[in-house]
């Protein structure tokens, strides 16, 4: 006699198809795991690279800071301070040298009234700044006063001081009055 009996509990659809779904699900999970692992590895490598660059820059920065502090320490030494001052002066002189004598003459000439003539011009240095000595000869005292007023009002000159004042020796009929003065030359004008 053939029997078709069974007291075992019928498997639910979930149990029946669990095995069938297990393989593709596991495969998908494996693929996802591999992709995530590769992504994580790539991100980690990138992080290591950036981290290395940052560390390198930090090391360079520290080295530069150390170099800066060493230089600062060197500059703080008295003998170097004197050298530094001299260098600064030389640099300034170099800058001032760039201003041509013709420029100075031109500026002085603009200040001369018609009855005054430029007799001499010397550019020197006093107290770390350029000082110019100007000698002029004029037909009258009023003309020389006019020149001094122009010089004091000029933006390129300050601290005007008269060095000497007098009359020309006999025979100088044209410009009998002479004047020598000094002034601080402000090449860039008044600030």
């Amino acid at each position, binding site marked *: *006699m*053939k*029997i*078709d*009996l*069974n*007291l*075992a*509990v*019928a*498997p*639910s659809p979930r*149990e029946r198809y669990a095995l069938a779904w297990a393989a593709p699900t596991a495969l998908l999970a494996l693929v996802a795991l591999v992709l995530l692992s590769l992504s994580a590895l790539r991100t980690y490598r990138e992080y290591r690279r950036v981290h290395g660059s940052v560390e390198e820059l930090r090391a360079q920065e520290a080295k530069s800071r150390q170099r800066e502090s060493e230089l600062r320490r060197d500059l703080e030494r008295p003998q170097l301070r004197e050298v530094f001052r001299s260098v600064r002066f030389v640099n300034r002189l170099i800058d001032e040298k760039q201003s041509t004598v013709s420029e100075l003459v031109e500026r002085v000439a603009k200040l001369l009234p018609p009855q005054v003539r430029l007799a001499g011009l010397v550019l020197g240095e006093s107290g770390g700044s350029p000082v110019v000595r100007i000698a002029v000869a004029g037909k009258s005292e009023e003309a020389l006063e006019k020149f001094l007023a122009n010089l004091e009002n000029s933006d390129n000159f300050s601290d005007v001081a008269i060095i000497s004042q007098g009359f020309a020796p006999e025979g100088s009929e044209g410009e009998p009055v002479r004047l020598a003065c000094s002034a601080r030359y402000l090449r860039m004008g008044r600030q």
Partner: protein
Amino acid sequence: MNWSGIGNRQKSASRGTAGFVLPAVVLEVEPEFVAAARLEGSARAGRSVRHLGVRALDSSTLAAHPSRPNVANADNLRQTIEEVLTAIGNGSGRIGLIVPDRVVRAGTLSFETLPDNHHEAAALVRWRMRENLPFAPDEARISFQVVSREAGHTEVFAIAARASILGEYEAALGASNGGPVLTLPATATLLPLVPERNSTQLLIHACSGWVTTVIVAGKQVYSWRTSELAQTAEGNWPREVAAESTRAVASIRDRQHMEITRAWLCARPPAEGGLISDLKRELGCEIEMIAPPRELAGTLSGEERSLYDHFGAPVAGLVVNSAKNP
């Protein structure tokens, strides 16, 4: 407290039972022994028994009963099952479970009409089986098969067992197997070994202090009785078996006016010569032993072959039935 176990039992009673299927490993649990067989081959190419093992079970471990708890010593039962499964080389594959006849109630039910819908038919069978059950029908797992269907008359053979009782046996298998895919009483597995004839035949299955008698004709089961052999008759149990068989024959003669033409006997452990002569004398018909087919034991070793001859009839019955259900 194992709440999940209770939940599973309640679910198992309400979820319905599966159809017949033959797994690669079959385990039989009886009050006196545990037997396991590993099968090989496929349903198409044919199955055979590859390994077979038997372990004795302590008498205090299991007390088969349809409504009371059966397993008295779960640890011992689990250990014995593990031993016998290990002996046959079982992995964690699907398993079939053969339970003692005492656990199951069986009956033939007649209907004028039976719904084609399986769930509706199952509900109807459950309702009709309530008279045979010593517990609430809602607690039963029921399986049935239609044995004859004519206009206005349908005969159904049904078996039922309390879900919680089956749950005890399933729990002993361990969680790794995920529950058995086949559960049957031992005598049901012998039915495929009884030749299908129109004449009335008697199947006698004596096992572990119990005897089950089944009267069949053609595809129809007319009677199923399971009785305990008297304790006082331990040395004289063949006579008890013969007496119970005589009662079954007398009952079917009175109720159905049917005469037994042949009786088939399966006794485990094997019966001595006295049983067959007693049966012949009491029943007055031909008696034949149910022997598991030799061709199904091709690769068994000598010792396993001996165990197969003595305990392998239910497994052989399942293999034969599987061949009838390709």
